[in-house]
Every structure is written in C-alpha cells, then in structure tokens.
C-alpha cells in the first residue's frame, strides 16, 4: 500500500520537469539500443576469433626463404634446410608448407567422393603440403589410417598439373566425402580425371586459410583441409616450425641463424608466429570489438552523467520540498528511496522505449549492413546494465538530497 501511495507524488514531481525526464528517457533508450546490439555483435566476433584452429598455435612459426644463386638444387635445399632445423635443440619438428596456415592466402580445389562428375558433390578443400613429419610439426592427432611415409613424399615443379595418388584429410572433410563408414581407404576423385585418389589417413580438424572470412558461401568449409605429400619451390619456399613448449621466441632466431649459416646465399623473410598470423587474419573483427567497446563505454558514461545532472537539478529545485518533508518526520532513508524509485521509474520508461528502438536498430543493421538478427537473450543483460547505471548515477545526488537539513523548511530565503 505504501509503495503505491509513494509512486503518485514521485510521478507528479517528474511531470513538473517533464522535459528533463524525457531527455534522459530518450538517452537511456538510445543507450539500451546500442548496448544490446553492440554486446550481441561483440559476442559474435569473440566467438569467431576463438574458433579452434587445430594446430599448436602457441608453439608454431612459419618462415619463407628464397635461394639467391641459380645453381642450388631446390629439392636438396629444402631437404637440407629441414634437416638443419630439426637438429636444433628446442625444435620439436618442422615441415614444408605451401601457404601459411589460416593466413587468408590459400590454395583451394574441389574434390568429390564419387567417380562420376557431379557438381552437387564437389567439396571445396583447402590444400596444403606436408612431408612425413606433419603430425608432430602441426600438433594434430591421427584419427584413422596412417600418415605419409618418407618414400611417399615427392618434389614437384610449380607448373605441376597432376593430382596425388594418396592424400590425408581432416575429419570434417573426410565425413563430407564419405558420410558413413571408415574414411581411410576410401577414394576421392578430381575433375574429369578418372584416377582414384586414396585417403590414407584422417587427422583432427585444422582450420582453413579462409577461416577469418565472412563470406556465407564459405561458412560450411572452414575445416576442410587436405594434406598432400609434396615439396615445392615456387621461386621461394616456406617452412612451418614447431618449438618445444615455451621455447618459441628463443628458437626463432636460432632457426634463422642456422639456415643462413648452412647456405648464406639466400633471403629469409616473413617470419611470423602463428599467433601473429591469426591476429592479422582477424584484425578486422578485433578492431570492431574494440571500437564497439569504446563507444559503448563512452555512451554509458555520457548517459550516466546526464542522469547525475538531471538528478542534481531536481534536488536543487526541490530543496525546500525535501526539507519540509524531513521537518514533517520523513527519515533520510525515505528521501533516498524517493529518488531511487524516481530513477527506476524513469529508467523503466527509457527501457520500454529502448526495447523497441533496439529491434529497430537491429533491423536496420541487418537489412543494410548484413548484420545478424538479434538473439533476444541479450536484451535482459542490456536492461540490467542500464538499470545499474541509473542507480549508480543517482546515488550521489540522492545522498545529497537525503542530507538536506529539515531546518530549511523554516527559512524564508
């Protein structure tokens, strides 16, 4: 009973300063709309950035090397280099690679699980090369079958146009070719070549080179990696090196030095840890998260200050009224509660407007900028945040109001 009777004078006090109240309600509404949509987008991006990558990100780096003298045999150079790298204490293993994993630069080809050409069954695969050290170098698991043997790795020239007779696929890719039953031992086919290509092994999922892409057409293919047993020198070649736990930063210069010592007539470039590669691939998503957090924070700050301003203004305007109430027996607690309830009512008005505005903003973002449709579970979180903001903001002025001495009621000035 008491609370209902309290609400009426609060509402009439708000009505007296309806412009101020409306302005704050509008600010709260816009803030809610932005906060909810921002939290939704941020969460989506963070999920995207945290997608598992498969290889041992913390301990891997990749480098590129170019031979400067024309009388080096590229095949021998690669084999010697890898032997050199593997001999360094602290290096767990190393393999030759065609492209840097998850870098946005990738070789893609479509293969299918049936011999007859069939456009609907073509599966886009991210091709990368490896030698027999792939499991240890990438930190992946063998799930079925076996890995390549040393005698199955061959050196190819840049214009090589054949397909391998044996490949290894990730579990996800394997299941797309062979929906049921064992994948290892099955055959896949390429283009119009009738040659069966045997899947000799299945490994744990590895993220493709286009993992950071937003293209809807690529969404289903993010773990479609196929390993082929080749070494290649296309005017340059790249090696992936995995360090023992924690030794990545110390072995990187050692690897560079060892390669330059064994063959000084060369260039070594683009030495990137896998974390750096991922940072660059996800740079856009990361930036979106940071900018949204900054703008969201500033908006909450400005709205909070606005609430402080309005509350202080009301307190100043109603000083006599408050003093009178205190003189008539209201406790400090009652005054405090009055202002808190007023703030909650105002925030509620803002939140109701804001909820509608949230959906409007989300609709506009979705239709014009391809954003996703809002998951309604984010709305309550945004509302709680906004209520908390209001309460924190109003506390100072409410406290000041409660400290107004009853004696004010009796003063004439």
């Amino acid at each position, binding site marked *: 009973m008491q609370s209902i009777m309290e609400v009426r004078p609060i509402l009439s006090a708000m009505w007296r300063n309806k412009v101020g109240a409306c302005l704050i309600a509008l600010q709260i509404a816009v803030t809610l709309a*932005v906060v909810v949509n921002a939290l939704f987008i941020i969460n989506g991006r963070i999920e995207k950035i945290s997608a598992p990558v498969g290889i041992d990100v913390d301990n891997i780096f990749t480098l590129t090397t170019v031979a400067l003298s024309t009388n080096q045999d590229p095949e021998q150079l690669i084999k010697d280099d890898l032997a050199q790298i593997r001999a360094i204490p602290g290096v767990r293993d190393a393999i030759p690679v065609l492209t840097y994993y998850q870098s946005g630069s990738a070789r893609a080809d479509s293969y299918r699980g049936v011999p007859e050409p069939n456009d609907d069954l073509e599966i886009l695969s991210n091709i990368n090369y490896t030698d027999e050290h792939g499991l240890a170098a990438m930190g992946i698991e063998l799930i079925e079958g076996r890995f390549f043997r040393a005698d199955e790795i061959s050196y190819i020239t840049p214009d090589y146009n054949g397909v391998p007779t044996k490949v290894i696929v990730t579990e996800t890719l394997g299941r797309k070719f062979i929906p049921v039953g064992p994948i290892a031992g099955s055959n896949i086919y390429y283009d119009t070549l009738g040659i069966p290509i045997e899947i000799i092994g299945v490994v744990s999922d590895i993220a493709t080179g286009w993992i950071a892409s937003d293209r809807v057409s690529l969404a289903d293919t993010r773990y479609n990696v196929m390993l082929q047993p080749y070494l290649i020198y296309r005017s340059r070649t790249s090696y992936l090196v995995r360090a023992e736990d924690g030794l990545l930063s110390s072995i990187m210069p050692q690897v560079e030095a060892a390669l330059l010592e064994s063959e000084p007539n060369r260039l070594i470039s683009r030495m990137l840890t896998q974390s750096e590669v991922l940072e660059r691939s996800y740079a856009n998503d990361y930036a979106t998260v940071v900018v949204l957090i900054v703008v969201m924070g500033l908006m909450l700050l400005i*709205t909070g200050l606005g609430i402080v301003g309005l509350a202080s203004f009301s307190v100043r305007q109603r000083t006599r009224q408050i003093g009178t109430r205190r003189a008539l027996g209201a406790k400090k607690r009652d005054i405090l509660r009055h202002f808190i309830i007023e703030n909650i009512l105002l925030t509620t008005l803002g939140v109701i407007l804001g909820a509608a505005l949230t959906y409007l903003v989300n609709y506009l973002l979705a239709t014009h900028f391809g954003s996703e449709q809002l998951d309604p579970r984010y709305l309550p979180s945004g509302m709680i945040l906004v209520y908390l903001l209001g309460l924190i903001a109003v506390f100072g002025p409410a406290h000041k109001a409660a400290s107004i001495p009853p004696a004010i009621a009796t003063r004439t000035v």
Partner: protein
Amino acid sequence: MMAYHLKLAWLSFRKTPVMSSLIIGAIGLGIGVCISLLTVYVLMIKDPAPGFSDRLFTYKLDNQAVETAETSTAMKHPLVGYRDAMNIIKSDIPVNQSLHYQTAAVIYPANTNQSPVTERLRLANAGFFAVHRVPFLYGSPWTDADEMSDPYQTVLTRALNETLFAGENSVGQSLKIGPNHYKIIGVMDDFKPMPLYLETDGGAFNEITGALIPFSLTPVLEMRKNGGSTRCRSDPAEDTFAAFLETDCYWIHHWVELASADDVARFTQYLDDYGLQQRQFGRFMGNAMHEVHGVLSWLEDRQVVNQDYRILLSVAFLFLLVCLLNCIGLLLAKFLGKSSEISLRRAVGGSRKMIFRQYMVEVTLIGFLGGCVGLLVAASGLVGIRALYRNYEQLTHLTLELSGIAILLAIVSTIIAGLFPVWQVCRLPVSQHLKSQ
C-alpha cells in the same frame, strides 16, 4: 552588436565554467568519435581517379563450358585470363588499354653493401601508365614498340628508388631483378590511388611498390602471379607455364579507357561478340552476358568498404545523438539558471528577438568550441584506428576538408540541440523573476 553578443557569451562561460566545459566536452566527444570514423570512411569511398574515373572501365566475362540458361554470378570472374586478354586487347574501340599483374622477385642493388631484397614486381603494358595517369619523377615509361623490341627495361616506384638510389635520378642505370638485368628508364612519382581500384584482390588499400617491367615478358619470365588471386576453371594440359597461359585461369587485370558512352556500348557489344565467337572452342557456352564496370561501380562490386565499418559508423552517429540529447538538457539548465538576468534585460527594454539572437550566438560559439575539442578527439581517435587496422595507414589523415566538416557538424548539431532551450528562454515571462522570491 555581434561583438557585444560575443562578449556576453564569453562572460556567461566564465560564470558557469564547469557546466560550459561539460557541454563543450560532450559535443567534442560526440563529434570527435564520429569524425574519426568518418575520415576513414570518406577516404574509403571517395573517387580514386578524380577527373578521369568516368572514362575507365573493366569487365567480367561469363565463361561457362555448359550451355545453360542461367547466368550465375559466380561464373563471372573479376580477372581475365591470358588468352582472352591477348585477344581482347586487339580491339580498337578503347582509346587505351591497361594490362597488369603483380608477382615478387629478388632485387640486387648495384651497391654491394646493400643486401638483396624481395620486392613486388609488376608486369604492365605500356598502356598501364597512360590509362591510370601514372605520374613520373624522372624519365618515362616504355612504349608499345619497346615491349616487343627491347623489353628488358624497368620503371621503379618512388619508394624503391629511395631505397636503392637514395632518391637520385637513376635513369640509365642497370638493375638486376631476378636472373636478368634491366635498364632503368623511369622513376614514378607518388602514385597512391585510394582505394586501389586497379587491383583490389591483393588488398584494396595497399600501395603499389617495387618495380615494374613490360607485360610482354610474361611468357618469357614464366613468373606466376603472387599477391592476389588466381582462379582456374580447369587444369593446364601439361606441366609447363606455356600450358598455364593457354588454360582458362583468371589472374590478369584489364582496364580500358573509353571516350564516350557510345564507346562503352560498342565495347560491351564487342565483348558479347567475342564470347559468341569463342563458342566454336566450347567456351562461353552460357548466356554470354558480360558485365562492364566503371571505377565506382567496380569498387561497389568488389565490396571494398567493409560492412563492419559501416556498422561502426552508424553506432558513432547514435553516440553523437546521445551527446546532443545530453547537451539539450545541459543547455536548458544553463540558460534557465540565468532566468533572472534575462527577465531583467527584457524588463528594461530588450526585445525577444534580441534575447533570441544573444542565445543563438552563444549556442553557435559553444558549437564552434565543441568542434575544436572534437578535432583533438578525432586526432587521437585516428591514431587508435591506425593501430587497430594495419592497412588503413593511407586512410587515417585528418584533411582540411574533414576538419571543416567537423566544425560545421558541431555548430549545426549544437544549434539544433539549442533550439528548444533558446525557445524556452525566449518564452520566459518578463515579470516572473523580478519578484524577490
């Protein structure tokens, strides 16, 4: 009169320093955030070839091996293959044509103290320089005749010339690129079309770096494209580069300069006719509908502006809205706090119009100061953006134009926010605050 208004406005600031700073600060923050993001956006969407972008065109061919009534857009490739490029360039409809692609090579400085470096290498025809209006610091590019008779010539970008020759005029000197020696015949001046409309597949805001050599060397040097995309519809018949050139692989950039709308229509027709003619080889079996794009429509098609960025820009404007709503409240409080002074002025003869003018001047001044604060905020915002987006280096410069827009936006939005408070102030009854209580 204006000086009087300004003086009163200034005095009013001094009397309520905290509140005035809050208002200016809020506007500054809102404007600053918007302008930082807007700067990058404006540079992302502006015409990269002002003055001649309406004459430049590129195209997408629709090459399908199977006769079908559909035109799937996936079939239309934004790059062209070697065979088609060599055929289409024979057309005399365009005023000029540009063919180019990039790769990488090791460059050996003549100065043996400097070690060899891997640099970008661009194979471009003579028309490339004319079509894209490439400016030269020293020397000049090769001619069509040179491409056939004397192709071992090179043009350096300004940056490479700085690295190798400390910016001096290196024309006439010899440079070893990869296994061959080239005569330097020219050095480019700064050439930074933004976005890089002529090559969007390697990074639309990248710069052209390294050295350039004639496109006619493509079958000779056998260097595959590096730094962009190559898409093949089928595999080459043999293991050779020559076979690769014959295959339906798409990797070359082809831009043409067309003098009039008529010529655009004629060129489009030419492409269609070319497609029909190629049908005898089992190519272009689809509807043979080709797309011809001008510079701006190409940038749209290639989706050069990041959608995420548009979302951020919208959120920034919503932030400005909240800042302005805040300002309305603050301005109201500030102005109404002076009700007694206003009533007094009215009582001694000041007209409503004068009060209105006074407060509009004050609001404009607040807007101007807010805009200045906004520029400072924007400058730091741009530093932050540069740190977040690695390749937006060229896009994060606060131009004079945008600074002007910032101040104007600040003034206009503050005036709009101030309209209600000023109206309220003008409505104050004369006598109310003259009473002692």
